[in-house]
């Protein structure tokens, strides 16, 4: 089986991470921001998996499982917050919650 070079996987992970970050910074809708966060999680997970494959260690996959759990917890908390947010502000615009400035 022709293995994918690690560099390619890492570049893909970096691109994904950058896309996620850019989306997080650009989008104002909290749902999209949560989705961007998921992309970033998965970019990090991809980097772990690639690294694990490169050195033939199970740690990379273990870490991916860990990330999946954390992401699940994050989504649970995030969606709960989102519901509360919408209930309070009647919008999903993150910038609406700016009452705690300087």
């Amino acid at each position: 089986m022709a293995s994918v070079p690690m560099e390619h996987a890492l570049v893909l992970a970096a691109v994904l991470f950058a896309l996620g970050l850019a989306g997080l910074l650009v989008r104002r809708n909290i749902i999209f921001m949560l989705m961007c966060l998921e992309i970033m999680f998965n970019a990090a997970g991809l980097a772990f998996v690639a690294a694990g494959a490169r050195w033939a260690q199970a740690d990379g996959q273990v870490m991916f499982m860990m990330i999946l759990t954390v992401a699940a917890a994050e989504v649970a908390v995030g969606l709960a917050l989102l519901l509360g947010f919408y209930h309070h502000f009647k919008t999903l615009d993150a910038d609406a919650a700016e009452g705690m400035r300087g």
Partner: protein
Amino acid sequence: MYELLWLVPALPCAGFLILALFGDRLPRRAAPFIGAGSVGFSALVSFLIAYRFFTAPPEGEHFSQVLWTWMNVEGFTCQFSLYLDALSLVMCLVVTGVGFLIHVYSAEYMIDDESYAKFFAYMNLFVAAMLMLVLGENMVLLYLGWEGVGLCSFLLIGFWYKNPANGRAAMKAFLTTRIGDTFMAIGLFLLFVQLGTLDIQEMMQRASQQWAVGSGVAVAAALLILGGAVGKSGQLPLQVWLPDAMAGPTPVSALIHAATMVTAGVYLIARTHVIFELAPSAQFLVAVVGAATLLLAGFAALAQRDIKRVLAYSTISQIGYMFLAMGVGAYAAGIFHLVTHAFFKALLFMASGAVIVALHHEQDMFKMGGLRKKLPVVFWTFLIGSMSLASLPIISSGFYSKDLILWSAFASEKGSKALWFAGFAGAFVTGIYTFRMVIMTFFGEEKTHVHVKPGWVMCLPLVILAICSTFGGLMEIPSSIYHFPLFTHFMESALPAAPIPHEGLEHAELMLQVIAVIAVLCGLSIAVVAFGVKPQIARAVVATPFGAKMRDLLFAGWGFDWLYDKILIQPFLRTARFNKDDFVDLIWNGIAALSRGVHSLLSETETGHVRWYAATLSVGALLALAIVVLL
């Protein structure tokens, strides 16, 4: 008898304590009895002691009474002790005698004042302090009295403190004399360090043994003492406070700013004359200061409108004569003039006070006139005082004392023709301004209606002082008329004899007297013509541009106030304003401002936008990574 000496300052002091502590609770009528009574008894004791001093003088012509040890620090003992010799006896008699008459006068003058008891309390404290000054055996006691009279002067100038101008005048007097006092304090330190004692007689003895004539220490000490004397006595260049001191009640002007306190400088120089003898250059400076002051103040008196300011300038001028006498070594002559001046100047002030009250507190001479018929007692006593001030021959005490000073200035070894001429010109000017004042106040048409006439309580002291002003001069009659040097002879035990005139000047004395008398009479007639008979002459002189300028200059007392304002007060105020927020604080304030600025900058980043936080977080992480990777 001499053991009663302590009563002389103690009685006024007790009067002060009673009036100050219980003045509000005592009936109003009791205040003048306590105030004047304490000084009266003090005067009585002084006169008894003086009688004793004449009939049976104490051993060595002086008497000293140690009351208790004031302070005893390692190597330095200061006794609370009184010293009586001819000089302090004469001063005591003047202070208590004239002081008593002025207290009696005040009993009526101040009767409507709400702080009647407080006034007498201050006056008593003043008399006590002045007696301490003249009776103190050591310099510390003298300085205590010196500062005490300064304090009382401040309190009494600002007695009517509800008018802010009076408060300012009091402050001016206090601050100006403070300059002199500082000089004097430094002088005392110098004397103590150099001579190791502050007992005046001991000090004089050691000075004459240890210091050479004209040595630097002696000159420095004499100049510092002169600084103190100049401040207290209102001489150039510290004379500016005295005309403003007239803001106080008139009895205060009579007692403090004419008869007694302002002559303290003369007393101080006479007391420490040994040091001045050791410093001829400083003594010459005393004479020059006196001569310059008597001329400048005499001219300034010519242009004043306020009757009390005329008298104030004439006081400065007459004390200038005393300084002139001290400067030429004629100490007894200076003290003699001090005594006669106390008589006639107290008289003039009190008579002017009677005029001021009669005209309902009008002090402007241009609004007076024609009071001769309305206030006969005041007119005649004022005239007698004026004759004495202008030193009309034979019938006035001022003639004898001023003549002695002029003669000493001419004939003594330290005198010179220039000094004599200054005194002579001063006598001429005195004649003009004195009779200008008399004519403007008492002659011509009536301009202000007489409000109240003075009662006998005010008139009695006037009459007594008028008698003293007329006959007081007979204590000393010049040899050109009839040789009778009682006063100078009496003073010889305390002060060195007046310098012996040069040979071949016997006729000069009479001639100089005649010249001086002619000058005074000329001044008098000029005043009569220019202000009485033909007032248009004076008006014409003032109407010319030069005359108007001169009048303004003289009215402002030669512009000394203006000058000091420009070179001292304004720069000081400017510096104060410039440094209003303390210079050094810039550092601490700067640190505070910096942290406050950084704080507000940082709080700007707290926008509340969660995306902005995320962005900064990632930029920070990126930077951290970049640092780790690149470095």
